């Protein structure tokens, strides 16, 4: 993150609901982070490491670029 608006955004909240209303806690347990971290990622308050980003995509059974979007300046 850093200065200005976040450049990495995501659709995790919508994708969780699309996958049988998966809870934040269920996703957190599957990817090995706390529920508060999933909440921070969804709110664009934290950009996860590449490893966690891949784990999220895998848990949602989607390619990485369907979950995360990188916005050019």
């Amino acid at each position: 993150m850093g200065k200005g608006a976040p450049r990495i955004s995501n659709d995790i909240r919508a994708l969780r609901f699309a996958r049988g209303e998966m809870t934040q806690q269920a996703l957190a347990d599957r990817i090995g982070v706390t529920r508060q971290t999933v909440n921070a990622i969804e709110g664009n308050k934290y950009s996860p490491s590449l490893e966690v980003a891949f784990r999220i995509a895998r848990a949602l059974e989607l390619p990485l670029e369907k979950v995360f979007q990188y916005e050019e300046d």
Partner: protein
Amino acid sequence: MDMSFKEKSLWVQLLGLLGVYAWYFATVLPAAAPSVMPQHVVLFAVAVGYLVAVQGAGHIVIAVFDPRDDTDERDRLIALKGAYAGSWVLAAGVFTALYAAIGTEGNFLFTHLLLASWVLSCLVEIAAQLYLYRHGT
């Protein structure tokens, strides 16, 4: 408010440090002497005892209501950024204490500036972490 175990733990540490060392400095500074006296050492030991007791009790209460004490990469990143912020305060305090040691008689001012710097650096470290948990890294 939705807080993790780690964030609740930081609040316990912050309030414990603030309470105990506010009491310590409010008690010791009016009885300041050129050098540290035995009663100052006793008060310091009592303050450390209070701090251990307050933090131990606080963490037991947190653990009873929130047994999940997991940490992850975000906790580690926030801890590192907090430590970085606190380290500047500690470094500034150490040099201020050294300056005081050269310019004053006795060791009271030197030791208490060092102690105050350490307390302040811990408070800054914890406050920075609490800010990052709420407003993002």
